[in-house]
């Protein structure tokens, strides 16, 4: 690698990680001010764990994330299968567009429009509406992850199974699914983190008693920099780091018998 390339890469990575490092370091700063280092302290973590509303919001977020990721996992896998297996079916272009559009659509639009729908059909806003909203935009992401794996799958394995007398159901559940399972899991994890992170959509479609962690954090952040938030951020970063490691390990694994 040339010196230029190496410099560019280092700068880019430094740029990406600088804010994260700032958060982590200052979450252990005894002083409230960012420019003053008051010594190493974990007191903000203590404050964090004593913060009732924040913990409650975190639990809501986890619940929503698990449910929406599960739904997105199923829908995304099905969609990926359809795109990979069903060839040039009619309306394929529109299907693809519909699947991937929620991924790039500005969140204010998705949030507002979903809220209007929920109000229109009289659905009470709360955890369920957030779950529906998150599942909708995460499906595309899961489809991308699973689709990539499906593309690289060796079809002859399934063909061999069929040749040996397995029905298409048996082939799917016995051969295909185990082979793509790591990618489905990785997609699930991706949907999970996306849900945990969402602020805008949740703000639109949530209801009383369904405050998510980002919503709570946002209301704090508007009031200014807060070391407790630094602590919360550091924990979230650590969680995500673990999740990413898990996901990359899963996608690196080729699945049983692959």
């Amino acid at each position, binding site marked *: *690698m040339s010196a230029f*390339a190496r410099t*560019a*890469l280092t700068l*880019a*990575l430094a740029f*990406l*990680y600088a*804010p*994260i490092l*700032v*958060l982590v370091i200052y979450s252990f700063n005894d002083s409230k*001010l*960012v*420019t003053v280092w008051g010594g190493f302290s974990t007191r903000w973590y203590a404050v964090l764990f004593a913060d009732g509303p924040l913990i409650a919001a975190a639990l809501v977020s986890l619940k929503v994330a698990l449910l929406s990721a599960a739904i997105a996992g199923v*829908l*995304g896998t099905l*969609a990926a299968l*359809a795109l990979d297996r*069903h060839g040039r*079916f009619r309306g394929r272009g529109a*299907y693809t567009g*519909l*699947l991937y*559009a929620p991924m*790039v*659509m*500005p969140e*204010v*639009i*998705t949030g*507002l*429009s*979903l809220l*209007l*729908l929920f*109000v*229109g059909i009289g659905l009470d806003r709360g955890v369920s509406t957030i779950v529906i909203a998150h*599942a*909708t935009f995460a*499906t595309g992401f899961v*489809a991308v992850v699973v689709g990539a794996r499906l593309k690289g799958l060796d079809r002859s394995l399934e063909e061999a199974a069929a040749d040996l007398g397995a029905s*298409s159901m048996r082939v799917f559940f016995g051969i295909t699914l185990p082979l793509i399972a790591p990618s489905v899991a990785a997609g699930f994890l991706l949907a999970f983190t996306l849900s*945990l*992170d969402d*602020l805008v959509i949740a703000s*639109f479609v949530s209801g009383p008693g369904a405050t998510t962690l980002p919503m709570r*954090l*946002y209301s704090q952040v*508007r009031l200014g*920099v807060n070391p407790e938030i*630094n602590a919360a*951020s550091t924990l*979230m*970063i650590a969680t*995500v*780091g673990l*999740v*990413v490691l898990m996901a*990359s390990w899963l996608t690196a694994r080729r699945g049983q018998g692959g």
Partner: protein
Amino acid sequence: MSGRLARLFVRGLPLVWLVLFFLVPFAVTLKISFSSPATAQPPYLPVIDWQGGLEGWREFLEALDFQNYRMIAEDALYRDAALSSLGYAGLATAILALIGTPTAYAMARASARWQPILVALVIVPFWTSFLIRVYAWIAILKPEGLLNGALMKLGLIASPLPILDSPYGVLIGLTYAYLPFMVLPLYAVMSRLDPTLLEAAADLGAGRRRAFFTLTLPLALPGLAAGALLCFIPMVGEFIIPDLLGGSDTLMLGRVLWSEFFSNRDWPLASAVAVLLLILIVGPVVLFREAELRREEAAEGRGR
């Protein structure tokens, strides 16, 4: 379960969900944009009388309220916000293209052992909370923040730079937050580049620079286009970054929509802004599809 039924289920379930929870809401939003706050309650009058025939349609169209669109057209605020949104998104995307290309290139040229690590390094921030990462920039950019503190200590400036609550803050925020969206698609294309092509170019006398501009870059163009689209579209409607890092003079449509909805409680107007935003986005997508189709045709046509 018969084969055909299974196929229908596999394809149909996601379709039904997305139509119900993605397309239908747009229709509702469009409808609401033609009403006033008074009428913007369920059952979302005016409602089409399906039995009414042509008369029914005429009544419906007459009952539509265009006041929101009139307000958008007349009030300079919306026009300015629209232009400003396009401007920020365009500028930030351009900056990202300039930064992202060498980064993705460097990643693609790294040894096979390092590449997955580098990819993971780029992905981790992407998976880390957007809100948190933007929030961190507040701590860095504010007048009493790290950047100004460091610059003043180094004696480079006398008084703090007003980066936060300014257009610069927004630009930095956008560039930062969307960097992985530009780098990853670019890297995906560049890493798939056949290394023997580069060897052939070297064999034919091309130095590194010529090989990059005549080979790597043209072949990476699809990745660049994908990255640009992945960045530009969400950026136009971005809310969090202008809200936290921008000032009162950084007007973007996402913020306008939010304040119309939450502060003014004017749902129909917010819907109209949403429609406006959608129209702004559709443009680049259509252009992108056109360019793609034209590229495919070129490859076909030449072959004849």
